[in-house]
């Protein structure tokens, strides 16, 4: 059996990056995710795998270093927390427009503005509906455990290169700061120059061989026809992602009359709410979207008809609930419970709120 190590979610991101053959990390410190770069600096992967770790002068600089690395077909990433991600959003739009693979980790904290360093999920809209400008999408994975933080790094790079699209791991202060045991995965070496050319020669700026014209990477297309064609191409790609990549988990939904939808750390807290409800004879289950984009539409859609009520539970003032309402589309009443600004509810508190909604 593989060794199991006790580590923080943020440390797991760093170890996973080294382990899965990441070529470069560019970041700027911000609580509650500073341990990502701290761990990378302590591990000195540039001496082992050759991975670059660089503290940039700002988040804007970090994301543009990611842009540069991604243009060269490298597995590159950055991490930050909410205010830092806001600064990166222009870069994210450019990365998406140029169809570049990369990983951005957001360990969310309470906002708006500088806000608080305590956990939050208030960047759901920003992560899933854009953030930057233009008709683009980012694949978004929401980890609930420290093992997820570790495993989603490799998965993110796989998806990023499969679709040539930015991928975001949308964690929060709870999964970032919490320690749990992590089962380490077999190491993947960094790609060699030959592997890189084989995989990315059709688009990356690897140096122009005589055999083909140069690859140009730009998001600029002044001609409306060309720009529209590019947008249609992007939308077709997003449709493929939506058809193939939705991921989710369910907990006790088979016989459930009531459903809680929750992502990240909240899905785990809500599993305890299910236990409280079932002690009282109420058949409650949980749907946990793992991908927030693409949203697990079909999974939720299929559960709606059996439900007397649905409640979205989030660490914000009601963001994902808009998607839940859209998918439920009037077939079941949809309620919301949330705490904001860094407060995290206990299972008892959520259960009390849930009971109130079904007694109405």
């Amino acid at each position, binding site marked *: 059996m593989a060794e*199991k190590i*006790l580590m923080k979610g943020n440390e797991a991101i760093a170890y996973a990056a080294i382990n899965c053959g990441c070529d470069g990390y560019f970041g700027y410190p911000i*609580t*509650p995710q500073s341990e990502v770069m701290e761990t990378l600096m302590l591990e000195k992967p540039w001496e082992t795998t050759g991975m670059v770790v660089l503290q940039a002068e700002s988040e804007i600089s970090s994301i543009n270093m990611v842009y540069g690395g991604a243009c060269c077909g490298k597995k590159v990433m950055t991490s930050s927390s909410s205010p830092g991600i806001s600064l990166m959003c222009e870069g994210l739009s450019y990365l998406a427009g140029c169809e570049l693979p990369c990983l951005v980790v957001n360990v969310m904290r309470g906002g708006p503005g500088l806000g608080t*360093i*305590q956990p939050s999920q208030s960047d759901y809209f920003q992560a899933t509906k854009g953030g930057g400008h233009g008709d683009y999408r980012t694949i978004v994975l929401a980890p609930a455990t420290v093992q997820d933080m570790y495993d989603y790094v490799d998965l993110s790079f796989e998806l990023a290169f499969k679709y040539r699209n930015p991928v975001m791991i949308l964690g929060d*202060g*709870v999964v970032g*700061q*919490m*320690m*749990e*045991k992590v089962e380490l995965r077999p190491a993947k070496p960094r790609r060699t120059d030959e592997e890189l050319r084989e995989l990315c020669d059709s688009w990356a700026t690897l140096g122009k061989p005589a055999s083909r014209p140069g690859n140009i990477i730009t998001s600029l297309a002044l001609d409306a026809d060309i720009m529209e064609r590019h947008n249609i191409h992007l939308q077709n790609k997003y449709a493929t992602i939506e058809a193939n990549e939705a991921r989710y988990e369910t907990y006790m939904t088979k016989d459930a009359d009531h459903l809680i939808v929750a992502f990240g*750390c909240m899905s*785990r*807290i*809500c*599993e*305890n709410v299910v*236990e409280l409800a079932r002690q009282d004879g109420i058949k409650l289950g949980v749907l946990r979207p793992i991908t927030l984009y693409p949203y697990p539409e079909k999974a939720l859609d299929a559960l709606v008809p059996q439900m007397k009520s649905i409640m979205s539970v989030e660490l914000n003032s009601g963001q994902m609930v808009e998607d839940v309402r859209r998918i439920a589309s009037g077939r079941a009443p949809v309620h919301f419970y949330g705490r904001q600004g860094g407060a*995290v*509810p*206990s*299972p*008892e*508190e959520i259960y009390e709120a849930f009971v109130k909604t079904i007694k109405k």
Partner: protein
Amino acid sequence: MKEEIIIAGFGGQGVLFMGRILAYGGIMQDQEVTWMPSYGPEMRGGTCNVSVILSDNKISSPILSRFDTAIILNQQSLDKFEKQVKPGGVLIYDPNGITRHPERKDIKVCRIAAVDEAAKLGNAKAYNMIVLGAYLKVKPVVTFENVIKGLRKSLPERHHHLMEMNEKAISVGMEAVEIL
């Protein structure tokens, strides 16, 4: 088996590290564990706490409002967490600096004069290991051997010469704890 613990005190008392050793001890006996700290300004002083869950099964919520055991090392934490101990649960506290002592009758209250014991040992830094020893005596959910293994895992190699002192401090705590 499932044990839900809150350890709370001042920043600098070794609260987080004590929780980490317990969590590693749990891993050594193949349990599921979570360690969830309060984080932020606490690092620079003020109150600080960590909840640790050890379980034979998958752990759902890492955030709790009721605990099997509360290990309390200052007045603010006693005021906050005494009421969050489950009926029949355990509260272990250090009376140093406490002006309002635990009042509940439906829980098992234990006292460990860890500040005094650490002074007797001549090592203020052994404080958290004395408290850990008290806990292990009252609630032997993790074996002494596994705690020592966990401690070895948690300490960087350069500190391994301190193992003996820490083992001694744990033993002192096990002997000095009083069940009230």
